[in-house]
């Protein structure tokens, strides 16, 4: 199962939608950096079964993460990377 990492605000570019268009059932999505601005994006909840958000990046930006998305720390992010294969980054 693929782990997708998105680091761009959905308002700034297409990284999130590009990612969601390449999602396979069971894949997971991790929002990091400006990607955390996507926590309330309806497309995310509609397409992704498993969504995660890097807590430090959300707190740093004053973004509140809804309960539908699991807030994770760096250790959990690493564990997700170990559990999934391959890992794809969507950026800029």
């Amino acid at each position, binding site marked *: 199962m693929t782990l997708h990492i998105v680091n761009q605000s959905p308002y700034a570019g*297409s990284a999130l939608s*590009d990612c969601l268009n*390449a999602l396979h059932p069971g*894949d997971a999505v991790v929002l990091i950096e400006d990607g955390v601005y996507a926590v309330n994006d309806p497309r995310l909840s509609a397409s992704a079964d498993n969504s995660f958000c890097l807590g430090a990046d959300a707190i740093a930006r004053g973004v509140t993460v809804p309960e539908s998305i699991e807030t994770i720390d760096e250790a959990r992010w690493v564990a997700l990377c170990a559990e999934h294969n391959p890992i*794809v980054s*969507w950026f*800029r």
Partner: protein
Amino acid sequence: MPRKSILAICRHAPYGNALAREGLEAILACAAMDQVPAVLLINDGVFLLLEQDAQQIGEKNLRRNLAALPMFGVETLHLCERSLRERGIDPAQLSLPGTELKLLQNPGAFIAGFDQVLSF
């Protein structure tokens, strides 16, 4: 070296971002090292296939670099059909000498089949 299946995803348009050129360079280098990757052009990466005259802006022609892939052992290019349609490109009009162009309807399933992905 142990065999790992490697996929290179190119999703940036040529010239506006160095990643289009440097991504291709990385693909050529992997292939020259006998780690021939599969290549997927998706999102703006499909623009690499357009006929182009980069001399106009003092750049080297990236479509020509792309055309070198078969010499390095990459004989198939995978294209995201949706990305082409969204950009008004008719897949039937595309060709690259020496290269088989394969359209993908479901890039997610394709990506999931690899061990490693290099994103450019």
